[in-house]
């Protein structure tokens, strides 16, 4: 049921067309601004009509996102965005649906809906703004905060092991898994484009700086002087290299990755080759386990494989029975049990 009205403009959009009339309200310096800007940039290039786009979010600073997009939007309740998005996609497979969530919204209260949307492979683009903190509620630690994080709710340091968002998503066999960084605007834009091109659940973690309550947690990955040593940009089919001039690489030792310096005997051939299309998610999982400071952290597309989507399978079941048994008539429904007539 496509509702695009005939007089709708050809989907040639500029980023500006995608800005709503609402004043954007995040703290000065918040990483969310960049994500909003790149999202508009990326979507403008897709040739998708604005009215076909829907942004659904939960609650959090990040979840204010839909108000700022001149598309259809739903600022729902805490942690539940994937459920509304699933319902919408089941009803309207024709729409291009994005889910915007945070590390608290998506992995604390909303963790279960996240893995179930992922396992069903509903055609949703789920963007998790990971700032390792609860921003909106003014700075408690989150499920992604590193052990020892001192916040209002953990004055002596947090003691809960953090979840790695990508490991969780891969645990649920996500068909598309990626990571990018708020300030790496070109990479961010690219990843968003790749995600929207994927048919099925796309899960994207974005390292996002919370200027007010967690400023600098991702400095190791964003600071010009050191980021090259602490991040590894994945490229499909290429060996895993990183560092200035990419002189370092990742080699597998059994199932354990190890950092090696290229040269004296060690060549690119010795390195682990990235394969985003690997049917088995074990490689993606292994990459998601590489954590700073022991390893550079991978950014890019970890996994991208094609599986049928939930809504397509459901639609197919409907079409198949209707083809084989014919479309149901109410009369059949009414008389589905013994009928008798009283004169």
């Amino acid at each position, binding site marked *: 049921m496509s*509702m695009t009205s005939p007089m709708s403009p050809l989907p040639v959009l500029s980023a500006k067309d995608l800005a*709503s009339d609402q004043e954007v309200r995040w703290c000065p310096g918040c990483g969310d601004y960049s994500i909003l800007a790149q999202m508009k940039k990326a979507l403008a290039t897709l040739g998708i009509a604005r009215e*076909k786009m829907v942004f659904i979010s939960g609650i959090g600073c990040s979840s204010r996102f839909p108000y700022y997009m001149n598309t*259809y939007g739903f600022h*729902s309740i805490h942690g*539940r965005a994937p459920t*509304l998005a699933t319902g*919408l996609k*089941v009803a309207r497979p024709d729409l291009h649906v994005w889910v915007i969530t945070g590390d608290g919204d998506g992995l604390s209260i909303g963790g279960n809906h996240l893995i179930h949307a992922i396992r069903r492979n509903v055609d949703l683009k789920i963007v998790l703004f990971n700032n390792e903190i609860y921003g909106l509620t003014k700075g408690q630690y989150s499920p992604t905060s590193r052990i020892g994080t001192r916040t209002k709710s953990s004055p002596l340091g947090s003691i809960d092991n953090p979840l790695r968002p990508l490991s969780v998503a891969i645990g649920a066999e996500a068909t598309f898994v990626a990571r990018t960084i708020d300030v790496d605007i070109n990479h961010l834009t690219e990843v968003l484009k790749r995600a929207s091109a994927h048919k099925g659940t796309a899960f994207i973690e974005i390292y996002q700086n919370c200027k007010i309550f967690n400023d600098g947690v991702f400095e190791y990955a964003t600071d010009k002087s050191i980021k090259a040593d602490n991040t590894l940009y994945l490229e499909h089919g290429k060996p895993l290299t990183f560092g200035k001039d990419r002189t370092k690489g990742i080699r597998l030792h059994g199932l354990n990755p190890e950092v090696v310096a290229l040269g004296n005997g060690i060549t690119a051939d010795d390195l682990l080759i990235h394969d985003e299309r690997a049917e088995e998610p074990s490689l993606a999982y292994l990459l998601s386990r590489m954590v700073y400071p022991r390893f550079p952290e991978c950014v890019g597309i970890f996994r991208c494989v094609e599986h049928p989507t939930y809504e397509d399978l459901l639609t197919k079941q409907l079409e198949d029975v209707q083809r084989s048994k014919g479309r149901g008539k109410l009369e059949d429904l009414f008389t589905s049990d013994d009928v*008798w007539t009283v004169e």
Partner: protein
Amino acid sequence: MTVSNPELEVGASPNGVEELESVTIRFAGDSGDGMQLAGTQFTNASAVLGNDISTLPDFPAEIRAPAGTLAGVSGFQVHFSSRDIHTPGDSLNTLVAMNPAALKTNLKDLQSGGILIVNADAFGASDLHKAGYKTNPLEDGSLKGYRVIKVPINKLNREAVAEVKLSPREADRCKNFFALGLVYWLYERPVEPTLRWIRDKFGKNPAVLEANTRTLKAGYNFGETTETMPVHYRVAKAQTKPGRYRKITGNEALAIGLVTATQLANLPLVYATYPITPASDILHYLADMKRFGVRTVQAEDEIAAMGMAIGASFGGSLGVTATSGPGICLKSEAIGLAVMTELPVIIIDVQRGGPSTGLPTKTEQADLLQAMFGRNGECPACIVAPASPADCFNMIFEAVRLAVTFMTPVFFLSDGYLANGAEPWMIPKIDSLPQIVVKHPTEPNGNGNGQQAFLPYKRDARLVRQWAIPGTAGLEHRIGGLEKEDVTGNVSYDPLNHEHMVGIRAKKIANIANEIPLLTVNGPEEGDLLVIGWGGTYGAILSAGERAQHKGHKVATAHLRYLNPMPKNTEEVLRRYKKVLAPELNAGQLRMLLRAYFLVDVIGLNKTQGRPFLVSEIEEKIAQVLAEKRGASATVKV
């Protein structure tokens, strides 16, 4: 007893026939004995015969208990009559007990002098022990006072199917049909419908088909040919309104009604739910209706199901979810979101015994106040409740109409008794059904800073906002759970706007009262007592009221099928009677509302036994209330 060989005595039955107005019979046995099936078949046969019927299945707790134990007993009660009836019957004329446990748990409901058919083969020492009998009731004389018919059902059944190739276990599984055949004879029911059912069901399995056919007939012949039976009985056709009928349970009527209403409204139906007793069957029915374009989703939990329903409605389908009380707790936050975003969704609550996990397989109606108030903030929603199994069709139709007409979540309060109970349903003429019109706007409806814009919270005269859906160019808009500015729908923290919106949300729901039928009474237009109820207690209240009227009392009954808002004339109706009595299967929830709204000293009759009211219970309370003096200051302790 020894059984003479049927062959020899085929022919005219020695027994006479007696005419009865109504009969209540219960089939009781082990969960494995197929009593639900026997009961259902008996119901069909009676319905097809033209009797009015009302049934009450009684399941044991969810998990199958060990065979032969008291906890494992399953029962199915059928009330059939030549006049129109409204309840499954208070007490039993006939009880079929397939084992000692069934006898023990059900005997108390059998009228003295009632017919007791027992499977004599099931009363061995160990059977008696499992049921906790010290002595054999068939021999210790404890059953005098009943017309006991001991039938060696196992043995006779095995004989009947002897020539069919079946394992002993398979053979024994047929014995419920032997008992059924016997009872068919006893009440002159036609065996044809059941034979047809057997053919359809076991077509792929000739042996089982043959065996069930034979044993059903054998049971029937056994009745006809043995003298040990009392006279047998006839219950004439009921004088029902002409038309086509079928038997229907509440959950069936609900599923069929949902599909009918949405199809007539051209509204795609998305049904998202998480299984829970006693609501799961609705999912089972709808999941099997893909031919009708129904999209069902089995969600990961109730919260997700509610979220999916909201998402579907945002997309222009009708989002519907169903659960029981514990699930309503979980959905409540998201229901608040639906209230704030003013989207049409239907929340079905098939109530069961509470609190907490409570008694999952038993009925109760104690979620009314939860539906009214179980959300944070001032969060009004519409509430309707069906009065009988077949009425689930009408009221779900109403729920759909009100949800889309007023852009609001609507609660549909069913219960375990309505869901599983059955009665005849007159198949409606499609074109006689109300039309539900849904319009999605395609054009902007106002101006936002200068240019044309869509204002999601702009309202019509009824205070209803427009249902603009994604995919419509130029109507892009954002909604959410934060307080909204009226008209624009922008987030607003303005104090006066908030107060205004709280008022608007309440007024919109109140406006529904303008478009629902007035409250009517059965009985005198004014008098000494009004008995008012809601939900599944309708039949019992109506019957009790009629009995009181026959006794010449100035007693009327009324039933609220719309609970929020209530019909406009509710107060006026209440005030026409000296006293008001509200029988409820809870501690007094409707009573609480009526007292608060109208300051009327409503008296309560409250039962929380996980069972429906007996007509007699209400009858007695009516007599008592009519008798006693009562001051206007009596206070409730809730």
